[in-house]
């Protein structure tokens, strides 16, 4: 039983969690840094507590500050959102030691699923196909060269402790490997405090497809369909949709059922996402797991009608799965656009500043998750996500048509955003016919996509 949750995050996800808490009749306290004093979640919360300065290391990333804030406000649970401390096993353990329910997998589960190389081996054992790669972490450059020669170039060198699209580098040949191995080790050490690397065959022209799963404490594991997140820029997702255009119905159902079964059997608990690459052969290969609620979860909510944040809280509170797999109905098609404070005309350079005008889109089957308001100051310290536009349609075509209409209604002045990039994307043939792969933005320049956007009325 959870009575009072400390929301240890910011931006749109803090607001999303606040809404889920209110819906469940759970009290919520929003933890914020000094830079977020005027953020929407803080303004609409019944209660909020400042946990530190703008520097995330001393606020959102400080386990003592977050746990102390939970105790100071009489909370019995912490929701970490995504990023920050959300997949930190030491944090989950410290929270539990102070009698707080961590809304996510337990410390023990997080630890088991912490090493990317280890998880690949674990899930392969439970029947998930993985991309050919090194057998776990590579000990040194010589071991990496040997593994790479065996699986064939190009390969991708990944930080075992990395994530969120960071800590990976494509290696084209043996010379590159000799040149870059120690640099990658240093980078991984600096970014994640762990220099271990593993490598995988680098597949080109892949779809990034992920499976939303949930597991209760008894080990009942369900899947909620897949999301296709192939439109990416430098491994950062821009658009997500469900279902994926890369899977045939036959492959899809078998694949989803297999993913849910494997993750339950491997001992995972709470909400999570299994990420796969689907190659030109149409087969999904497991790459990694995300042990948290994800930015793109609304896509799944729109096609299944399941409130994933509420489900996550209920599972963390110890409830059993409130539905069966047969009751998870997937209907129609949903697409999410991540509107960020980045200027697509300038290499997606991050923007900060005051929002002068803000009008959110509306209409049938349009959802807009955002913490913006006119007069809000976008701080320069954190990630640049401003809003998520999620649109549903009976078919992909209908969802796309509604997305065009909704995007045109979005008005955000004061900082450059990715809105026009998405309007252009919705006129780009490879996106429209569902063949866009993770290499799309390398094949078609951003300038061409922007040029495809319909001109605004002068």
């Amino acid at each position, binding site marked *: 039983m959870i009575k009072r949750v400390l929301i240890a995050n910011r931006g749109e996800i803090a607001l999303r969690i606040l809404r889920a808490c209110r819906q469940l009749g759970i009290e919520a306290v929003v933890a914020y840094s000094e830079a977020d004093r005027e953020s929407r979640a803080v303004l609409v919360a019944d209660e909020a*507590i*400042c*946990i*530190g300065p703008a520097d995330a290391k001393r606020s959102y990333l400080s386990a003592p*500050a977050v746990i102390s*804030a939970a105790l*100071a*406000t009489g909370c019995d649970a912490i929701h970490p959102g995504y990023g920050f401390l959300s997949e930190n096993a030491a944090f989950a353990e410290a929270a539990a030691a*102070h009698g707080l329910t961590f809304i996510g997998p337990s410390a023990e589960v997080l630890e088991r699923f912490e090493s990317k190389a280890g998880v690949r081996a674990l899930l392969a054992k439970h029947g998930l196909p993985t991309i050919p790669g090194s057998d776990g972490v590579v000990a040194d450059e010589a071991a990496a060269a040997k593994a790479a020669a065996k699986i064939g170039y190009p390969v991708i060198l990944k930080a075992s402790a990395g994530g969120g699209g960071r800590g990976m580098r494509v290696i084209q040949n043996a010379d590159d490997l000799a040149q870059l191995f120690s640099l990658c080790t240093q980078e991984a050490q600096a970014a994640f405090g762990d220099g271990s690397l593993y490598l995988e065959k680098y597949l080109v022209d892949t779809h990034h497809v992920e499976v939303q799963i949930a597991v209760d404490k008894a080990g009942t594991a369900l899947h909620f369909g897949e999301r296709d997140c192939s439109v990416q820029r430098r491994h950062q997702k821009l658009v997500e949709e469900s279902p994926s255009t890369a899977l045939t119905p036959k492959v899809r159902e078998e694949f989803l059922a297999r993913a849910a079964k494997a993750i339950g059997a491997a001992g995972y608990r709470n909400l999570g996402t299994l990420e796969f690459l689907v190659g030109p052969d149409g087969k999904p290969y497991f790459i990694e797991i995300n042990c948290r609620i994800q930015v793109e979860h609304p896509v799944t909510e729109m096609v299944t009608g399941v409130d994933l944040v509420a489900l996550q809280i209920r599972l963390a509170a110890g409830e059993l799965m409130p539905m069966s797999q047969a009751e998870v109905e997937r209907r129609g098609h949903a697409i999410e656009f991540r509107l960020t404070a980045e200027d697509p005309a300038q290499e997606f350079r991050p923007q900060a500043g005051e929002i002068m005008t803000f009008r959110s889109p509306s209409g049938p089957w349009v959802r807009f998750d955002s913490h913006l308001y006119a007069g809000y100051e976008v701080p320069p310290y954190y990630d640049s996500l401003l809003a998520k536009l999620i649109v549903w349609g009976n078919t992909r075509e209908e969802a796309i048509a509604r997305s065009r209409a909704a995007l045109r209604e979005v008005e955000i002045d004061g900082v450059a955003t990715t809105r026009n990039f998405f309007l252009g994307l919705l006129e780009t043939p490879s996106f429209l016919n569902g063949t866009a792969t993770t290499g799309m933005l390398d094949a078609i320049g951003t300038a061409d996509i922007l040029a495809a956007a319909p001109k605004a009325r002068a």
Partner: protein
Amino acid sequence: MPHNTERLGDLIDSLVPVLVERLHETGLGEIEIERDGAIVRVRAEDLGAPIASAPAPSAPRGATPSAATAAAPSAADERRHPVHSTAVGFVKLAPDIHVGGKVAKGSLVATVDVLGVEVEVRADHGGIVAKLRCATGDPVEYGQELFLLESVGEGKL
């Protein structure tokens, strides 16, 4: 909100002489204390006209006190130095920290217990404690005003 004016009168009668005396002793510009939900404030420039405010709204635990404490800037502001919490946790005030207590610049005025670790709060200015905004054992947020120091001019004492 209905208020027991008789009780408020008694409160003022008993407190004001003490506060006025304290004002003279300390050379402070203003002293404010809270009793039974009422705030009594005595100012040097208008002695004899104490302001008895309505009961203080009980701020939610850990809530931002900024709105309640924001005031129009005045000449007196330059002498006022709010002391802020350096961490989120439970506060413990140093023994000298009571209205009228003297504080030396740089001295340890409070600690904040963050999961058993005592985080220090030191005074950036010397002065005399004019107003307490918290009590030992209270939960405090980062940056919360703990108390107000007032520096005393040389010629004032």
